[in-house]
């Protein structure tokens, strides 16, 4: 069942400590951005993480790459714990794990040509001499569908979609095995979004890549992912095969989320009954007791506010379908 695993995240935690006061800083609260999540990604598959803003999905990606330090837990990459590696070891491992950022406007330096941007990872890791690097960059530009002759242009000369292609090329420069895609298409228009999604899935096949795909748009995540994890306030509430998640969601939050997304099909929408979740996402500084979703949950009982439900498998066959709910599967 759990064979061929490339990355396994165990009990991952990231807390941010808030401080107030200027001279005598006191701790004024803890933001539990990611609070004990477990998931794994098989080689060559795409694992999607969805959730609304502030649920901790981007933090998860950043902690895995150790762009920010983890508070606790393990991230087993090819059977080594990324969190236990020292600086040089981590530096080396980062060659295999790369990230694509959300905003193609902010993630490319405006003062560097796209050639410099894409070859920078190669320079940092001292791969090839200058001449061969240029060859490589030109090759990469072609792979992501840009004109290699534009190697000396600056980011502002490109459109949003083209910039995101540059971001993809930069991530591919070191021929990584695992690509963390942090909202790679949410800043783009639909027609361009589709181009980038196609590019990513093409590259996956071509280079045998494994993706962690993070997005707030469930329909995008469902389209690209083999399996999907749904996050709410720093916790994973449901993990399932992407088609199962849509067909038979078990967690009430997933049900609400699915129902909230309008489908671009007017006839269907007229028939569809909508469940609108009430209230706002609570603050992660002082999350609700027990199940974090209970204040918004139409199914909540006493037990939900007292005890925290664990992720349990509800599937009979070989594909796991995990949900963290005492009344999993009960319609809302």
């Amino acid at each position, binding site marked *: 069942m759990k064979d061929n695993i490339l990355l396994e995240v165990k009990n991952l935690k990231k807390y941010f400590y808030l401080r107030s006061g200027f001279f005598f800083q006191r701790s004024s609260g803890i933001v539990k951005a990611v609070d004990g999540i477990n998931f794994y990604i098989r080689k060559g598959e795409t694992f999607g993480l969805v959730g609304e803003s502030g649920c901790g999905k981007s933090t998860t990606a950043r902690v895995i790459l150790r762009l920010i330090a983890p508070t606790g837990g393990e991230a087993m990459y090819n059977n080594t714990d990324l969190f236990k590696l020292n600086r040089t070891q981590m530096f080396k491992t980062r060659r295999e794990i790369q990230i694509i950022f959300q905003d193609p406007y902010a993630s490319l330096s405006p003062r560097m040509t796209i050639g410099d941007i894409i070859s920078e990872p190669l320079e940092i890791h001292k791969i090839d001499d200058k001449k061969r690097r240029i060859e490589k960059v030109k090759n990469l530009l072609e792979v992501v569908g840009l004109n290699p002759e534009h190697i000396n242009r600056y980011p502002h000369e490109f459109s949003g979609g083209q910039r995101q292609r540059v971001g993809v090329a930069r991530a591919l420069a070191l021929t990584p095995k695992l690509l963390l895609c942090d909202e790679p298409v949410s800043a783009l228009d*639909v027609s361009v979004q589709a181009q980038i999604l196609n590019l990513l899935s093409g590259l996956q096949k071509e280079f045998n890549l494994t993706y962690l795909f993070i997005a707030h748009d469930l329909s995008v995540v469902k389209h690209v992912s083999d399996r999907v994890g749904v996050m709410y306030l720093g916790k994973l509430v449901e993990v399932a095969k992407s088609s199962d998640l849509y067909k038979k969601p078990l967690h009430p939050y997933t049900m609400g989320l699915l129902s909230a997304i309008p489908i671009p099909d007017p006839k269907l929408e007229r028939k569809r009954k909508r469940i609108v979740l009430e209230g706002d996402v609570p603050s992660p500084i002082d999350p609700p007791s027990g199940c974090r979703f209970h204040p918004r949950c139409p199914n909540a009982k006493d037990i939900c506010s007292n005890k925290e439900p664990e992720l349990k498998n509800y599937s009979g066959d070989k594909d796991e379908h995990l949900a963290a709910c005492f009344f999993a599967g009960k319609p809302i």
Partner: protein
Amino acid sequence: MSTNNKLLEVKDLKTYFFTDYGTVKAVDGVSFSLKKGETLGIVGETGSGKSVTALSILRLIPKPSGKIVGGKIIFNGKNILEMDLKSLQNFRGNRISMIFQDPMTSLNPVFTIGNQIMESVILHQRLSKKSAKNEAMKLLELVGISEARKRLSSYPHEFSGGMRQRVMIAMAIANTPDILIADEPTTALDVTIQAQILELIDELKHKTNSSIILITHDLGVVAKYARRVMVMYAGKPVEFSEVDNIYYKALHPYTMGLMNSITRLDEERRGKLKPIKGSPPSLIDLPKGCIFRNRCNYSIDKCSKRYPPMVEIKKGHFVACYRSEEMMENKIVRKN
């Protein structure tokens, strides 16, 4: 429907921005009409001119760079573009009001919520401060904010994004306008909050019997709420019809391409999406002829000569494409 229930009529609207780099034709010949009580959707990608269309209706185009250079906007028999400043102020926020995209920046951070709602009530309904306060409280309750009395003295930063958008809606409906323009009202919000806000707008529409212009890039939202849809591309309308025609019988290649580009929640994982090739043109340097021709799979010689006019290809279905007739009669094989 008869033609005399047109509440608003926009005719050949042209709004240009004059910049150092050249003239940006943000809106270039938009025409549509809005019926009483209907929800009209305007869809398009970034830079297609949907927001500028909305701002033009309220004459809120930033000066001096922007200017409405042509067209008519007829509301209740009067041309908005010819109104003097005083009558414009009387009608803005009163007969037609607007909900903006970003609730974080469209509320004033230094005034209380109550103050900001009361402002428009006092201005247009000439109420006393006390009755305006009562009115503001009722409005807050109407948009689903609990403990309205207490909330009147809160500042915008004390509200979440969804709540702020509710406040914006309260301000917009304060004078029961005939037309509510919602410019990407939920783009900045999370999905579950988006559903709440859209349901609220729809509910209020039925209560007050106002018309809505819903501007969005989300084809799902349009499918759910709009009755008629105008698709815009690079400042021009390309297709305009009943929502079902747009989704199931689209005739313009751009609309068809858009529909093929979206990921759908209710579909099995598909192989590949079929995106439109290339990216939208710069509005300064538009191609001659049809603006979509460079990205189009069906372009013919004619397309590079002159922009195709918007024609009513069948009743209530307008398309700006030379090949729409062939497309409708299935004489061309759809490539997407």
